[in-house]
């Protein structure tokens, strides 16, 4: 009985409150939320504007601004997250950067004791593959599954980079980013 009353109220409300808007306050930052409930009716009144303070919300909905331009230089900066893979003489490092931070968000390298202990050699193709698999698992646990990876062209064809790329893709990381949603898209 009470249930049918509630559902009828809900339909009415959806008819009225179809378009409650929430604002974006700045370029890359998420929207703000104001969901105060005055004591008029218990839990019934909702503030019309809602601001979401999750910094990753806009880019996950592909509404955040990408840094366009930079087309005359390499690498470009039009991404939300980028993947950097570097091989030095003794170690192999893979890092994920976001467009707004100097420090990497996620790293995986053979310098960590957890990986170093398991690998016989820290700069071979198998080490690159291991780094790729571990980084893919960490990215999936962190909720970052789409990133841009642009390797230096002549090293891209090497076995190590190919095996790293293959292990990332096999574990479910997509190495391209969604296109941004403009007005009308």
């Amino acid at each position: 009985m009470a249930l049918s009353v509630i559902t009828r109220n809900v339909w009415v409300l959806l008819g009225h409150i179809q378009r409650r808007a929430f604002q974006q306050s700045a370029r890359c930052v998420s929207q703000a939320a104001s969901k105060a409930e005055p004591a008029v009716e218990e839990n019934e009144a909702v503030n019309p504007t809602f601001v979401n303070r999750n910094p990753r919300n806009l880019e996950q909905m592909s509404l955040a601004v990408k840094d366009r331009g930079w087309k005359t230089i390499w690498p470009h900066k039009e991404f939300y997250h980028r993947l950097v893979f570097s091989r030095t003489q003794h170690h192999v490092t893979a890092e994920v950067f976001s467009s707004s931070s100097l420090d990497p968000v996620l790293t995986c390298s053979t310098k960590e004791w957890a990986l170093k202990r398991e690998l016989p050699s820290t700069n071979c193709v198998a080490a690159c593959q291991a780094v790729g698999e571990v980084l893919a698992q960490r990215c999936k646990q962190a909720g970052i599954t789409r990133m841009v990876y642009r390797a230096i062209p002549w090293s891209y064809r090497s076995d190590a980079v190919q095996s790293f790329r293959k292990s990332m893709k096999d574990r479910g990381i997509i190495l391209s980013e969604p296109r941004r949603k403009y007005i009308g898209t």
Partner: protein
Amino acid sequence: LAPGPLPNQDIDVKNLESLEKYHSYKRYFRQAQEAHNKPVWWHTYRKYVEKANPQVDIGFPLEQPNRTKQVKERKQVMKENKKNMELERAARLWEQTSGPHHIRRLAEHYGIYKDLFPNAFFLPIIPLKVHYGQNSSVHYGNILTPTEAETAPQISFEAEEGTLWTLLLTEHLLDGEAEYVHWMGNIPAGAVQSGDELCHYLPPFPPRGTGFHRYIFVLFKQNGPIDFRDNARPSPHSLEERTFKTVEWYKKHQEHMTPAGLAFFQSQWDASVTHTFHHTLMKEPVFEFIRPPVYHPPQVKFPHRQPLRYLDRYRDGQPHTYGIY
């Protein structure tokens, strides 16, 4: 007159042959990256965006064993490894060695420290494992559906006998108010079921159209049993009673507890959210995204190559769209 040395000032332009050559792209690329990240005296976009707020560490200090001994032991293990060519993964080792630092970096990227404790951070040294059923578990930024998170999760963490812990689940919403959906205090070591449940579990309800919300589990270690009776919420609840500020609550009990573990997940709207709204809270709100206004530069007296509707953009005292970002 420049307030500092100009870049490439000390290169002798007339004698370019005497300069040291790079001989490889990699060497140049590495030097270029270091030069890009070096702090400079001229104005950059990075300095404009960076906020230099002093950060305070409110967690436990990390215990580092003697470094030289550690390095010796590790070198021995690596020698033995070289003879044995099999590969394995060790996730447990990561949790103890570099796990806390990685989780802390991710939490800063997600803005969790900024929202929960302004101007403070902590290193989550205790690995906190939260599982919703068989398949879904909460790591650091996972995406879960509200359907999976409908029932209360199973929580496990390593703890010595005799220690007391507090677990808090928040969803930070407003400019200073967090909404807490589940909270247990005075948990004896290891057994989450036998703690005092101060507020029972409310499944996450991200409203439709608002995108992804973060739900944060924080584990505090208590020095002794704490009286949470003024914070206890009885079973029939309302959203108003559930709103509270983590900062104020933590300041009240600051001396008796320290944050030690962290886990968070994201979730979006789902059909089960409608169900939660109707049965527990209220009528379900639906939101739509407002885009920022289209950018127009300041008005110029003689606009070059602009259409006639250029004047419509600045007519009738409309708010200007430059300088709002």
